[in-house]
Structures are given as C-alpha cells and as structure tokens.
C-alpha cells in the first residue's frame, strides 16, 4: 500500500479515473465543477483591493467573481500542497527554473525562461477568463457534462497550443 504513495508516477488511466471520481464529490458536496482559473481572477481582485478597495468593488467583474478566500480559491492552494506531498513522498521534488526540454532548444538562461513563463502566463490568464474556464474547468468538468461551450473551448485550447508549440519547437508530425 505504502509503495503506491512513493511511486514516482501512476498510470494515466488510474489518475484520470481518480480525477473523475473527485469531480463526483465536488458536485455532490460543494455543488460545483472542479476548476482552477477562477482562483486567479479572485487573486487579481484581492491585489486590486489592496491598492484601492473602492475601485475593485466598483469593477463589474469582481462583483461577479468576488475577491474572497473560498472553496474555489483554496483549490489552487491545495493543488500546490498535494503536488508537494506527492513529489516529496516519491523523492522527485527538484528545484529548477529552466525545464530541461526548454533548455535544450532555448538555452539555460533563467531570465529568458522567466520572461517567457510570465508572458505565457499573462496570455493564459487572459484567455482562461475570456473563454470562461481552463483545462480543468472546461477541459474536464465541462466536457464531462457534455457542455457544448466546453467541448469547443477544449478543442481551441489544444489547437492554439499545438500551433504555438509547433512554432516554438518545430512540428514533429511534418
């Protein structure tokens, strides 16, 4: 039993089914789909509130997505802790700034990777809120409810991702 927790990786099918079952519990116990990108909008609202509470409260988006610590916000904190527990137990916790696959093509300069990660993150945060969800909210929780918007969003996530990754690293299938 304990070997399970110290294994570096599990079968992707088992992990997937585990996430599916976890989503049963979020619908049943919290009446919510499992998503991550809302928490980032809440964080942005919290930071905005630090500078000017009145201005943040006047923004319609933060009236819809309130900048408060709640179920949705705790999810992302939990993911960080849960992944740490998993990595720590399996001895795979490694501090790095430049992932090896990135370094192979673009070099080991931490500043370059940091700028790229920041720009990628900005686009992702903008796109996630624009589309109303991310890889978990639309890609898993939405598609499993057979939501049309979620299926279209998931296809666009991968279409955009495959195009830009191909431009960065070269298309493997050409």
């Amino acid at each position, binding site marked *: 039993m304990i070997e399970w927790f110290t294994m570096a990786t599990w079968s992707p099918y088992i992990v997937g089914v585990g996430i599916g079952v976890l989503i049963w519990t979020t619908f049943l*116990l919290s009446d919510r789909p499992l998503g991550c990108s809302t928490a980032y909008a809440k964080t*942005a609202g919290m930071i905005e509130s630090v500078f000017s509470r009145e201005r943040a409260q006047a923004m319609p988006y933060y009236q819809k997505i309130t900048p408060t610590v709640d179920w949705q916000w705790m999810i992302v904190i939990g993911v960080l802790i849960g992944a740490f527990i998993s990595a720590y137990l399996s001895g795979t916790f490694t501090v*790095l*700034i430049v992932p090896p696959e990135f370094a192979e093509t673009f070099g080991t300069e931490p500043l370059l990777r940091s700028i790229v990660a920041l720009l990628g993150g900005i686009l992702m945060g903008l*796109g996630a809120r624009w589309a109303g969800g991310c890889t*978990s909210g639309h890609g898993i929780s939405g598609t499993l409810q057979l939501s049309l918007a979620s299926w*279209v969003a998931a296809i666009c996530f991968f279409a955009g991702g495959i195009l830009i990754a191909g431009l960065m690293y070269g298309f493997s299938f050409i």
Partner: protein
Amino acid sequence: MAFERLRADKRAQIVLGLVTGIIFGFLLQKGGVTNYGVIIGQLLLTDFTVVKVMLSAVLAGMIGIYAMKSAGLVRLHYTRGAVGSTVIGGLIFGAGFAILGYCPGTAAGAVGSGALDAAIGMVGIALGAGIFARLHPRLDRSVHKRGIFPAETIPELIGVRPGIVVTGVALLIIGILYLLAVLGL
C-alpha cells in the same frame, strides 16, 4: 437534505476546497502532468499522457455525474458559449498553454514539485486575469456576444437524449484510448 446544509456552510466549504485541491494536486503530480516536458510533449504530439488523463477523467466523471443527476442528487453547471468568447478565448489560452508549458492547475502542481518557472507563470496568470477584469465591461458588450452558440449542451444541439449521448461519448473515448495504446503513443 444534508447535502444542501453542507453546500451552504462556508467554513466547511473552505476546508473541502483545500482537501479537494490536495487530492487533485496529488493526482496531477502522480500522473506526471505537472511536468513541463509532458505538457509540451502533448502539444508536440509526441507524448499523450495529458490526453489519457483527461479522457479517463471525462469518462469516469461523465458516467457518475449523469447517474447522480438522474437520481436527483446533483445539478449540472454550464453556460452558453459563443464564437467571440469561447473560440477566441480558447485560442488565446492555447497560445499561453504552449508558451508557459503549464495550465492554471498544473502550474500550482509544478510549483509544489519545485518548478520555480511555474511560480512566475502563476503570477502571469493572475496578471492576465486582472487585465481581463478591466476589459470585461467592454468585451461583454461587444466581442463576447458574437456568434452565440445555438445550444448549451451536445444532446440539445443534436436533439438526442442525454443517456444516448453519454453512451456514445463513452464508447468514443474508449475507442480513442484503445487506439492510442495500439499505436504505442
């Protein structure tokens, strides 16, 4: 109903959110999808771990959620999309997905595994969400209303009962997973 009371209990929900997140993060890390190489490998179509995890989750989740819905235990949560919101937003997200190499959930998981570039990515995601919040009133009046989808769900779009669509999608997912295994991807 006991569930209604639990769902309305704010403090209990904060604890539930944390516990749910910990299990989710644990599973993502064990699945390998908090790794930059695995995500980029999926977008380069050389590693299909991300698709295997997502499709298995959708298969198990869909059957359970629709079973609980017919038993009256859960409500569904979806909204109507539009070309201007879903397609454009989805493509912007996809570009960010490739450039960052993590998504909003797996970025947090990657930080938990020691990837500091993912922490910078998380700052970026919050910045991007903040930029969206500022654009929201203008977008909501214009682009987001372009090309509103004719239906909210696939069963509604094709006019087939949800139970049949669930069966069809389940068979499709099993077929894709089987094909990926046969092709050795």
